């Protein structure tokens, strides 16, 4: 069954272990600007949100790509990037509604999450399970259940 990367901003501490792990996995050095995951923090409220490619089913980056560099292999859940076909027109960068496809001038390539061949480094590095790699059909089950528990407690108090 297919898996997806699920984020839990309620658990995220803003530590950026995912960011350093990603840049290290891809480049063997620490360059957050080259990470395929970024963490944004709102300090007044103490909330952080990790952001990375959603591997959209109808992916705008693949739709606009004129050379097929950004593409989906039939049957795969991943949007893959083939640098050899890429002409660096950056249409994918323009098209991604999340800002998750990024052009990197250092490597002259498009950076986006490829789930590290089904073994995401960011997930392994997260100390609080704020990023998980889960079966897509049950991805929200634990979140739903956590909310269900709040209802349960409310009902228990009433009863």
């Amino acid at each position, binding site marked *: 069954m297919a898996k997806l990367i699920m984020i839990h901003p309620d658990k995220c*501490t803003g*530590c950026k*272990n995912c960011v350093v792990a990603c*840049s290290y996995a891809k480049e063997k050095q620490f360059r*957050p600007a080259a990470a395929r995951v970024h963490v944004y923090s709102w300090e*007044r409220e*103490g909330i952080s949100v990790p952001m990375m490619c959603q591997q959209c089913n109808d992916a705008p980056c693949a739709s606009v790509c004129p050379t097929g560099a950004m593409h989906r292999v039939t049957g795969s859940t991943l949007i893959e990037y083939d640098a050899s076909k890429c002409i660096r027109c950056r249409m994918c960068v323009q098209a991604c509604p999340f800002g998750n496809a990024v052009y990197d001038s250092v490597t002259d390539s498009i950076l986006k999450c490829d789930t590290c061949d089904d073994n995401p480094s960011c997930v392994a590095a997260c100390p*609080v399970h704020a990023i998980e790699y889960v079966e897509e059909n049950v991805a929200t089950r634990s979140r739903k259940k956590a909310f269900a528990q709040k209802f349960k407690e409310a009902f228990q108090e009433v009863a």
Partner: protein
Amino acid sequence: MYGWTGIILRVNLTTGEIKKEPTNLQDAKLFIGARGLASKILTDEIDPKIDPLSAENKLIFAPGPLSGTMAPSMGRYDVVCKAPLTGLLAASNSGGSFGPEIKFAGYDLVIVEGAAKKPVYLWINDDNVEIRDASEIWGKNVPDTTEALRAATDEDAKVACIGPAGEKKVLFASIMNEMHRAAGRSGVGAVMGSKNLKAVVVVGTKPIAVADPEAFEKAVMVARKKITEHPVGGTGLRVYGTDVLTNILNSVGSLPTRNFHEGYFPNADKFGGESLTAKYLTRPRGCFSCIISCGRATKVTNPKYAGEGEGPEYETAWGFGSDCGIDNMDAVVKANFICNELGLDTITMATTIACAMDLYESGFITGKDTGGLAVKFGDADTMLKLVEMTANREGFGDQLAEGSFRLATRYGHPEYSMSAKKQEMPAYDPRGIQGIGLHYATSNRGGCHVRGYTISPEVLGVPFKVDQHATEGKPQLVITFQNLTAALDSTGSCLFTTFGIGAEELAALLSAVTGVTYTVDDFMKAGDRIWNLERLFGLKSAITGKDDRLPDRMSKEPIPAGPSKGEISHLDKMLPEYYTLRGWDSKGVPTPEKLHDLSLA
């Protein structure tokens, strides 16, 4: 270049000159980075006798070679300068992402010299560095400053700034980064204010390279595992924050209470970590590369004290709590928020108020001095008012802004200041815990717990338990902790990694990142070298061995009640042995042989 970037950024605010110069790698090997390397540069470049608030002082922002890597919980930096509170070297340590961002911009250190004529901020965008006008944000608090500067530069920029307290040169003003992370102690914010420097804003996109990736990955895995599996580093601090210590210190009768008159506070649980987690915690927060997450995003809903922010740490909860005789947690958390917003060190702020309460109740300060305020132990609302008055140097607050030593001296009773070398002692009673008293008395920045945290073995039993009331063996214990911490601070590591790892793991990480081989002995010797460098500066700038002491109250007034009832500090028994083991003469001066051995002569 590995670990280190090899470049130092030097900015002169008087002339406007901006220079990039190579890092002296020989010094980098000997002093590592952060606290150590910045202290080496500062002591080489300034006259120890200068006025800390003059343009001759320098302000160094210093991450370490491990900052910015995935070494766990090692993304910290130090702010180093001559300290206005003590006249000693300040190296105030802070977390968040600001230190790593300096590295990503390409710099080992940022040295700020001189003083600007008008308010300015420093904008570092990789190679592009500008001194920009800050007149429109001068006067703003920390969160508003941070947001205004992000709007003016880059929405994700890392901002370290001062609040009104730093602008008004409160002697214990902090520098705050990312709103809630504080380079708190010794008044580094006042030095920044004296330079008319409102903020340093950084964006970096460059890499930090690793010399030996294979060894580094292995060392990271080992360190992560040991820290995560440790009950303190892996669980206690994440669930309860550092404030978990309140009930622990109270249970051993060493929770200083009412300006250190007592060592036990019956209502301590009201401001302990368990209460914090139950009633105030929104979620745990982590600094860059942190796997511990002791940071507390918190909220007070009581309309009278409403606010949100981060904290309190244990020492803050203790200071505004039992040291002021207060058990109102809403007010304690609120006091922490105000300190962060206005840019004040919470420890010196709280203990200076406790000192004022003590002087007032003893009749040495009256309503005439305070502008009519009754400054009494236990009065939370007056405490909160005094925090704001201090940050703005308003009325009686102008006197509190000088810290407890100058306050108590002004009224003829310096013995009421619970300080060592003019910096206030934190939350561990040196009468009930002998080793920490020896550390306070000998610490190179005055009263301070984070440069020789013997609480770990003396109270927590980490890595082994020793008798808190014994003096035997304490001098060596204190020296080992002081040296280890000096080296650890200089790597960029958080002190809390030592709940899990020690010199061996740190030396392995440092060697793998930098490509310079550090054995455990090399690492500990670097710590010894840094400690002696700081001592030499202190002896030239502000102190003699006679200042290695504690307030008289610690040796003359036994703890009156609780589990440590009857105890006093036996500093005199421990100090001579400490000097001998340090390789110092009977006056506390490092011998020529010692300095030669450490390559300091």
